[in-house]
Structures are given as C-alpha cells and as structure tokens.
C-alpha cells in the first residue's frame, strides 16, 4: 500500500496507508489526549477526548479511529476542539466517584499530604513523615499544638468513631527534630543571586523564607520584635505552645542560610523604598495583625481595660501583670480562651475569671477542647450578654461594666444566629480588669512611607488570592495582614507564605506568576459529606488516642505546657487508625492530569455520580469501579491475556466494568498478570502496594 500525505496543524506528514489521524499526530509529536486508546489494540473509541477537526467534515472526529486520507487537513488545537475536550473531561469528572486525595488533605489550607505523613508514622518512619509534612508546612511542632484542625473535622473516621488525631501526630513527627540530636532541614538550591526581604518572623514569613531558601534565593527576615514566632509567640500562651519549641522550629531557616534581623519595624525604622535601595529584588510582607480590635463602647480607654493580646504578649515575655481578683474576658474565640487561662495563671489560681460571650456556647468560634480546658481550669462562662459601657467603679479600684442581655435572632452572614439586645435588660458587673479579646486587625502604620501598597476594602493589604502579589509587583504579602476573605488561622498563614514564595520565585525567574498553579482533583462529595458506606465498612473501630496532660495541681502555678504529647509509641498506634483515603493512582491518573491541563470546572455539571463499588478481594488488585471511565482498556487487555475476567456489566450510566455474574475478582480465573491495572487510565483498577506481577 502506498503512503498517505496529510497536514496536521499546518505541518505535513507522510504515513503508511491504513494509519489513523492519531498515528499521524504521533509521527509529528503533536500530543493528542486520549483515555481509551491502547497502542497495538483495535481502536475502541469511547472517550471522545481525542477529537480533532478535519477540514470539510462537519463534526469533530475521533482521531484514534479515523483513517488518515490523502490530502486531509487536520486541526488539533482549535477553540472548538479545546472546548469539546474540556466538556468531555468535565462530564467524566462529574460522574467520577473517587477521592484523588484524602478529604483531610484537600481541606488542609496548607495542603499537607496528611494520609501520607500519617502512614509514615504508622510505619515508624517519623523522619519521612517530617519530610512529607515540610513539603507543604515547615512548622509541624508549632502548628501541631495550636492548629484549629479543619482536617480532623472532615476525617472519614469521624463518621464511624472518632477522627484520627492528625494534629497531634504532627507533633509526633516534629518534636524529635527539636530535641537536639536530629535536625531535618531540606537542601537548598545553589544561589540564584536574587535577594528577598521577608518582613515578619511569624508563620507566614518563616514559611516564605523556608521555601524561598530552598529555591536558592538570598533571604533576610526582618522582625520588629526581639525574636521569632510572631503571633504564635506573642498571642498564644506558652502553656499551649512553649517558647522553646517556637524558637527551635522557626530558626530552622537560619540553618538553611536565611539571615534573621530583629528590632526593626517596617514603617517606623525603614520603608519598602529603603529595601529597594538596598538591592532587594522582592519583598514578602508577613506583618501580622498587631492592633487589637475595638469594641466601640464608651469607656474603653478606662484604666483597667486591656486588649487580650497585650496580656498574652506580656505573659509570653514572663512579665508580671496585676489583673486584680476579678477578670472579665470578652469574646468567644480561641484568643479569649487563652486570655482566660492566662489570667487564671497570672492570678496564680487565686482570682476569678469570667468569660462574657454575646451568643451561646454552641456559637463560640473557639475549639471545643479549648473551651473545655478553660472551664476545667476555673473560668466562669456567661453567655448571651455583652458590655455596653465601662466606667470606673465607685471605689475607684476597679471597673463597673454595664452589660446587656442578648437573645438569638436569625442567622447572620456567618451562618451563626445573630445576638439581639434585649431592651431594659442592663445590669452592672464589678470587675478589676476587663480583657477585650474580640479580635485583632492589621495595623496600617507599617505602611507609613510605603503607601504605594494598596489596601482592600477591609483595610488590609490587597493581594492576589493565588499569588499574594500586591499592587506593587515586586511586593507580595500573606497571612494576617492580608487575609482577603479568609478566616485567617496560622495554617493559612503558612500556606500564604509558601504560595507567595512560589510566586516570588516565578517573578524572579521572569515566569508567569501563578503561585501554586491550578490543579483539578476529584473528591467524593464535599469534604465532610457522608462517606460511601463501603468506605466506612472497611473501618475496624478503634479508640482515638487520649492526649496526656499534666496534673491539675500543676496547671495554674505557671506556664508549663499542659499537653504532654502522644509520644512515638502512642503516636504510631494512633497513626494506624488512618485508612489512608485517596487514590493510589493519583500520580499517573490521566483524568486528573488532563483535567488540570484543560482547567475543567465539572461543578457546573454536578449531578448523579457513579456508585462507589469496592472489590478488595484480590491479593494484588483493588477495584474501585466508581472511578472507571468505561474506556474498556482493561477488558481488552484481559482478553488479550486470554482470560476475559473483566467485562461491561449493566447499561448506560450504570455500566460498570467487573467480573460477570456479580463475582468478586478472587473468584475468577484472574492469574494476577496486572495488565488491567497497567492500562487503566485512572485508579479504577489499582495494584495493591507491594504486589508484583509474578504469581
């Protein structure tokens, strides 16, 4: 047979007669995505991802099975083709019943590969666990103690017994590294010659420095305080997060070659212009939220009224603060709980601490465990009331706080029921100190002399939500000073620092600035949604490890850390409770990589999804038919192997690939050649870890 000449994307190619358009594209090294095509097999033509346009043909044609013809003119990259492929992938993604990653992983603001680090602990490899953790989050010992744990809220195990103690396991992985003997710091790339200033040695800044150094950039961290830690140090009491942990963990960037400078404040001692003049190529602003929010009530400036962060900072520095015998803390967040517990300690257990919150316990944003600890240590909780006026008490020694009772109205924008004042319900409470723990905000004084940096509508530094880039191209920001619409917690700050580091790297390298980049991944439902029963049925009930704590008697006498940590052995047992949600094939899943490449948005096609079916019977293979694309590759591979174990069962949307007659894989003639798993474009058929071809 003679050769055929055709043109693909404007390039001529000559291929043997009988070839397909896909063969022609291959000869030209023009990539055409396909999910159902297998080299050496008759084209199946089911996925329709490989469509191309042929001039003179009305509709797109599948290139895998369309014979190339003499003089054919083919286009593989037109808008129409791109849109068709995108819709194809969106349809496949919209029916896909599979978790690329654990829901904990996708919920973690920093994107920690949680099931992977937990598995490493379960195997007894805490160093490997630390390495995995630090790919996304360099401060496991610190954050492991204070994170609000969004990951644990969505842990699948929580739907059967209790969530895995993910956060405490970070400490299990991180603490051995701080004890002196071991020190795991990542390698840094050779110097790039670029200089970056990081303003703020809190979690955002140190995270940025950590990743910037790995890229080989010269990093100087400048902080106005006397040492590292930022709000984790000055806003969180040492009995929750001891200073020495912060000190050692944050200073790992020094070991990586970053320079740390203290006692210099942006806006007071220098400006961005000064940094430019000193030759810095880029700046990361991790300035934090230094100013206490005002309650906007009369008498707030009366002596005896103190912002919560001021007390916490003083306590952190070991300074004595005289609060008198009756302290009222106003607020319902974790800072308010910290203030209560700090006040109890400052009073050496001899005073009274009252917490006043305008809603009820159910609406408190503080973590349940923190509320419990505060009550356990002696805090009196008073709900549905708020201060409306503060005056000096008649004896002049304290404060007369006029409070008003509240009732709950309809939910507000945060979804919590709005407190509504009750007319004529005012009463007076006599206290020695009133602590306002109703929040902090960014203090724009830091931008004095650097006003070119734009602010957002909340008065914070405006930055791109994906890159952290501010209105000044060489200046990036993140964390509490630039929260955007996020409810900023420390782990978000770490993510912001990491993302900005990537963006700064791109900026310095002259690349497109995309930050972390786009990644499409699949989840079964939204994190926290009820899990398929088959997943929960795999769980053997096991009790969550209880955190050992110091004796009650020791608590209020000082600022010793209350939690003793799970320790390696208990941690390992706890880690084994994790069922490692996520897909074994995530690294080489074609649906995921094409979905990412085509930036699919399957949400617009949300509807019924494939049934979650699990066949775990085979020693080497794992079948999760919910992830099947019906490409038939495994069916053909199995037939080619002479077995015909797998086939299509059912019709239409409910079609699944499985052994016939409802058998499990173990009950078939399967000889474990694993060809099916090798050709599966997704994780519908997976080789179990450790399994090999030899039977």
């Amino acid at each position, binding site marked *: 047979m003679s050769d055929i000449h055709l043109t693909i994307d404007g390039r001529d190619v000559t291929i043997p007669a009988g070839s397909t358009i896909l063969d022609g594209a291959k000869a030209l090294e023009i990539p055409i995505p396909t999910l159902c095509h297998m080299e050496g097999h008759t*084209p199946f*033509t*089911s*996925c*329709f*991802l490989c*469509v191309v346009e042929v001039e003179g043909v009305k*509709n*797109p044609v*599948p290139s895998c*099975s*369309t*014979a190339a013809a003499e003089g054919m003119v083919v286009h593989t990259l037109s808008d129409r083709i791109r849109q*068709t492929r995108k*819709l*194809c992938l969106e*349809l*496949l993604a*919209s*029916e896909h019943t599979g978790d690329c990653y654990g829901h904990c992983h996708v919920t973690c603001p920093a994107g920690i590969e949680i099931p992977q680090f937990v598995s490493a602990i379960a195997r007894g490899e805490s160093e490997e666990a630390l390495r995995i953790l630090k790919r996304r989050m360099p401060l496991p010992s610190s954050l492991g103690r204070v994170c609000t744990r969004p990951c644990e809220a969505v842990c699948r195990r929580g739907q059967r017994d209790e969530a895995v103690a993910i956060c405490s396991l970070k400490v299990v992985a991180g603490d051995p590294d701080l004890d002196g003997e071991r020190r795991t710091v990542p390698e840094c790339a050779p110097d790039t010659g670029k200089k970056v200033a990081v303003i703020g040695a809190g979690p955002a800044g140190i995270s940025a420095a950590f990743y910037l150094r790995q890229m080989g950039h010269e990093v100087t961290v400048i902080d106005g305080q006397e040492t590292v830690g930022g709000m984790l140090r000055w806003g969180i009491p040492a009995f929750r997060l001891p200073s020495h942990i912060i000190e050692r963990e944050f200073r790992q960037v020094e070991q990586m070659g970053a320079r740390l400078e203290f006692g210099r404040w942006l806006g007071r001692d220098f400006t961005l212009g000064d940094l430019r003049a000193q030759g810095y190529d880029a700046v990361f602003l991790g300035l934090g939220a230094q100013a206490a929010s005002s309650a906007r009530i009369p008498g707030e400036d009366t002596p005896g009224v103190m912002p919560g962060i001021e007390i916490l900072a003083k306590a952190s520095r070991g300074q004595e603060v005289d609060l008198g015998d009756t302290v009222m803390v106003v607020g319902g967040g974790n800072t308010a709980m910290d203030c209560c517990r700090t006040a109890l300690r400052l009073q050496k257990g001899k005073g009274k601490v009252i917490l006043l919150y305008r809603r009820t316990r159910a609406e408190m944003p503080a973590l349940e465990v923190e509320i419990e600890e505060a009550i356990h240590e002696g805090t009196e909780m008073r709900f549905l009331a708020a201060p409306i006026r503060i005056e000096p008490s008649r004896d002049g020694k304290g404060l007369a706080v006029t409070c008003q009772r509240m009732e709950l109205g309809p939910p507000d924008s945060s979804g919590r029921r709005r407190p509504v004042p009750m007319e004529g319900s005012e009463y007076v409470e006599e206290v020695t100190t009133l602590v306002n723990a109703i929040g902090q905000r960014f203090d724009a004084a830091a931008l004095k002399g650097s006003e070119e940096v734009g602010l957002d509508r909340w008065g914070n530094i405006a930055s791109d939500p994906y890159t952290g880039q501010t209105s000044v191209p060489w200046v990036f920001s993140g964390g509490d000073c630039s929260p955007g619409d996020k409810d900023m917690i420390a782990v978000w700050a770490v993510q912001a620092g990491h993302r900005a580091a990537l963006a700064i790297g791109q900026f310095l390298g002259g690349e497109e600035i995309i930050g972390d980049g786009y990644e499409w991944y699949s989840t079964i439902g939204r994190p926290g949604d009820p899990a398929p029963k088959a997943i929960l049925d795999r769980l053997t009930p096991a009790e969550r490890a209880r955190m050992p704590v110091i004796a009650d008697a020791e608590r209020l006498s000082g600022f010793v850390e209350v939690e003793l940590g799970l320790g390696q052995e208990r941690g390992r047992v706890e880690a084994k409770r994790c069922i490692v949600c996520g897909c074994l094939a995530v690294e080489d899943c074609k649906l995921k990589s094409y979905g990412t490449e085509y930036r699919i948005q399957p949400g*617009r*096609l949300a*509807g*019924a999804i494939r049934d979650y079916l699990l066949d775990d019977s085979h020693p080497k293979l794992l079948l999760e038919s919910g992830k099947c*694309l*019906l490409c038939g590759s495994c069916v053909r591979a199995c037939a080619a192997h002479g077995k015909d174990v797998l*086939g*299509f069962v*059912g*019709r*239409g*949307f*409910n*079609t699944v690939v499985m052994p016939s007659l409802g058998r499990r894989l173990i009950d078939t003639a399967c000889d474990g050649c694993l060809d099916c798993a090798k050709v599966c474009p997704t994780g519908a058929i997976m080789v179990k870890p450790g399994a090999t071809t030899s039977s």
Partner: protein
Amino acid sequence: MAPGTTASGDTIRVVVGLGSCGIAAGAQDVKEAFERLLGERQLPVTLGVTGCIGACHREPIVEVYEPAGRHVTYAAVTPERAAKIVEEHLAGGHPIEEWTFQGEPLKAEVDAYFGKQTRVALRNCGVIDPESIDDYLGREGYKALGQVLADNSPEKVIETLIASGLRGRGGGGFPTGTKWKFTRAAPGPKKYIICNADEGDPGAFMDRSVLEGDPHAVLEGMAIGAFAVGADEAYIYCRAEYPLAIKRLRIAISQAEERNLLGPGIAGTSFSFKVKIKEGAGAFVCGEETALIFSIEGRRGMPRKRPPFPAQEGLWGKPTNINNVETFANVPWILRNGGGAFAAMGTEKSKGSKVFALAGKIKRGGLVEVPMGITLREILEEVGGGSDTGKPLKAVQMGGPSGGCIPARLFDTRVDYDEVTRTGAIMGSGGMVVMDSSSCMVDIARFFLDFTQKESCGKCTFCRVGTLRMLEILERITQGKGKMEDLALLEELAVKIKETSLCGLGQTAPNPVLTTLKYFRDEYEAHVVHGRCPAKVCKPLLTFSIDPAACTGCTLCARVCPVKCISGEKKQTHVIDQTRCTKCSSCLEVCKDNAVVVK
C-alpha cells in the same frame, strides 16, 4: 387461499383481525365466540384470521366476505356483538350496518382514514391470513422472487431498486439500491443479509404490524436482497417483546422452506438462502446496525465506529447488508410493479410511500401508509381526524425519541426526508406522537430524553453522561428549580452530544430538547423565569385553590383529599392548605362546580 375468494364459492368467510392490537382489544375472545357460535349453529361459514389493517382505534375488527361478493367490516366487535352478528348477518343475511365501516356513522370516518392512504408495504396486512402461505401466494406472493431468479441478473435487481428511489425505512434513509450495490461489490464469497426488526421507538409499531400481518413479504424481500448482493444466509433480529411476530415468522419460514421458496436450491436454481431468527433482549441501541451485529455475534450490544460499514465488514467480519422490515416489505412490490411505479409516488428525493404509527392525542390512532409528499396536516387532520380531546393540536413528535417536535405552524411540512430534517426532526422509522395544548413541551422533552438516557449503552462519554446531565436539568426545570443558565447548558450539551457520539442514539438523543427549545422556548422560560407551567402539567409549579364564588360547600373535595388539607364546613367555602397540598388533582377531578382552580 386469499380471503375475498372462497374455497367453494358458496360459503361465507369470517376473518378476525389478530394483530397484537386486535388481541389487546379482545379479538381472541371474539374469535372464540365466533368458533363456539358457528359450531353451535352449524352454519356453513369458514373462520379465518388476519393481521392488523391499521385502524387500531376500531379493534377488534372482523371482516365478513360473502359468496356474492359483499364485504363488510365490523368494528369494535365484542363476544356479545359477535352473537348478534351471527344471528342477524351470518344466519339472517342482514348486516348490522351501524357497526360496520361500510355503514353510517363509521363510513365517513373510514373513508377519510383510508382515502388518503396508499398501501404498498401494508398491501396484505389485514387482508391475508399471515399464517397461510397460500393466502400470500394468492396475492402474487413470491412471484417477484420467481421472476428475479428466472432473470438471473442481480445487477438488474439493484438497478430496479435504485430506479425506485427506495430509501431505508428504519430511519437512516440511505438509498437501498445503493446499499445493495456496495454489499454486492464487497469482496468475499460469504455475505449476509440482516433484517432489522428491533423496532424500539416508544409508540412505533410499523414493523410489528408488517411481521404479524405479512411475514412472507419480508422473507421474499430478504431473499431478493440476498440474491442481489450475493448472500446465502440471513438473520432476522427481532425484539423478543414481539412474540406473535416471531411466531408468525417461524411459521412463514417453515412454510416457505416446505415450498422450496427458502432453503437450498430455491425453485430449482442454484440460489440457496437460509433465514434464522435472533431474538433481541430489549436494548434499544441494538437497533443500531453495528451494535445489532455485535449482539448477533453474542457480544455486548455496543456500537463501533463506522467506517468500516457493515457492507464492507459486518457479521462475523463478512460483508453484510442490513435493511429494516418495512424496507424489505416494499421490495417484492417494486420488483413486480417496476421501479418507476414506486418512484411515481412522492417527492423528488423521497419516493414511494411510508408507514406511520399515529399515537397520542389523535382521534384515529393506528397504522397508516401514505404517499411521500403528503403534508403532516393531511395525515394528522384528515387521516387521523385531528385532536381527540377537542383541544387544538400543538405539535407532533416525529422519529420517536430520536426525532423532534414539529410545531403546529409547520404542519404544512411535507413528508420528505429533507423537509422533515430541516425542521429539526427526522423521518425516523415512522412514529408520530401527537400533542395538543394540554402537553407541556418541557415535560415532553424530558420524557423522550428519559427514554434515550436509559437506553444509552454507556460507551461514548458524551452520550452516557451528557444525556443524564441534560435529563437532570430538565427535571430541575419541570420542578421549578431551573435557571436561565440551564438553557444555555442544555444547548451546549445537546450540540456536543450530537457531534461526538458513535451511533444514531447519541447523535439524535438531544433532538427533542433542541426542537422544543427552538419552537417552544417561551414554555421553558415560563418554567424558569416565572415558575409557571403553561400547560399545567408540571405539578410542583401548580397551585390548586378553590374559587369562593363557585364553591357550594359540598365537602366532596375535602373527603377525597388524601392528605386532608382541605377544610371547610358544609355549605361553606372550602379552603386548600397550600403548605400541605400534594397537587394530586383529586379535588379537581371530583368538584362538580368547577370551583377548583389550577394556576
């Protein structure tokens, strides 16, 4: 022996229509009643059966042929009526005219129904006994085959077919003669003929009627086709839901084999032809030729990419010619009467006649065969008698679930492959579902898509997932949860599904949605924007209330309400509690004072 003639020339012959439609209407009981009555009375009357004559709305139908040549057709016969017919007509010699097609009041209706029809494919249906080869032979049966074998020129057969302009009646509309030519030209000694009798469109029963009423015509057409393309073996792929058709086919095959009209060395020539029946298991997609072939081969019924076409690589990899039942049924007539006679009917590109199954909101539902080129209006209003509800006709769905809704304002469209396609519908295999103003077009689109979505084989991504997503959107709209963006998404999905599906199912499944969006967009918008179903079909969008001015307080509605949400004292105005009303319509149905208002 064909009815209309008699064995001895002096007995009356009674013929009961025993198509599935007749049987469903009670014809079996009628036949037994005649057997019993005739036996009891010892009358010199022979009793026979036939297939469907097409007037399904008047079944059971009984024909009476008298030796003197008088022929009357009784409609809607019951065992009781049979007794009276035996008494007054068969014994007494006086037909009961008001029950017959030939007498008033039915005559005008029957004239209108049959007046515009031209029966080619249906020429013997309702006339002959389908289980009697002699009846068929008496109507020129197998003469075309004999003539073809005598001429011994396959090329001439193909030329005649091409000259006739016959196009595939299964829906594809591909010129039959050309298809035969391709199969004949394909290399290889072994070729197959397949008769596609996997009629799957809801509301379509053309092929069933032909198979039940005139199976030999199909066999003869297949034999001629086999001779023309050089095949010696054939399969009839018939859905198992057609047991009567299969039974009559089996009888016909064995009768034809006995007479050497099928089997080895037909009529003393060297031409051999074996026909087998393959019963389909009910998958709609197996009506698609490549899926059908896989199914015969014992594989999963899933289409594959064409080319290669079955004419090149078909059953067991051999060249295969596939035509549908109606196409084959036309073939003997064309060979007997010449391609020109067939081509004389119809339009420039659509020749001959076409069988349609009329169903839905139509006065005279049934099977009609009309010349191509007739307008939809003539079929619906003259043959079909218009709406059976008194409400004006709104649209007709042509081509089954793969077809489209043609609105009333386009009823002057002629039955012609190209003209119908221009409306967005397709000629299809002949289903016509008629809708009046009480039909909600969004709901109709949802109904047809629900069918195709469930029948998708699941192979092609766009068809498998896309049709479900479209269905989900339509369900949302009919539940009052639609958004305007949904209409754009429906169109995006519809266009892509049509463009990127291997077979006709996916390529046409969006048609009902696209045509209703095109012609009845206002109804979609009424649902989405105003939360209103203009046809008052979509329950979640309706409110039932009681008009105080009309309510007499009879308490009937309150008593039938299954959720007890209607309150009111006797002789006082009643009120429906909207929060609990399930919109079941019970109150509406029982109210004698038209006081229940639906908005």
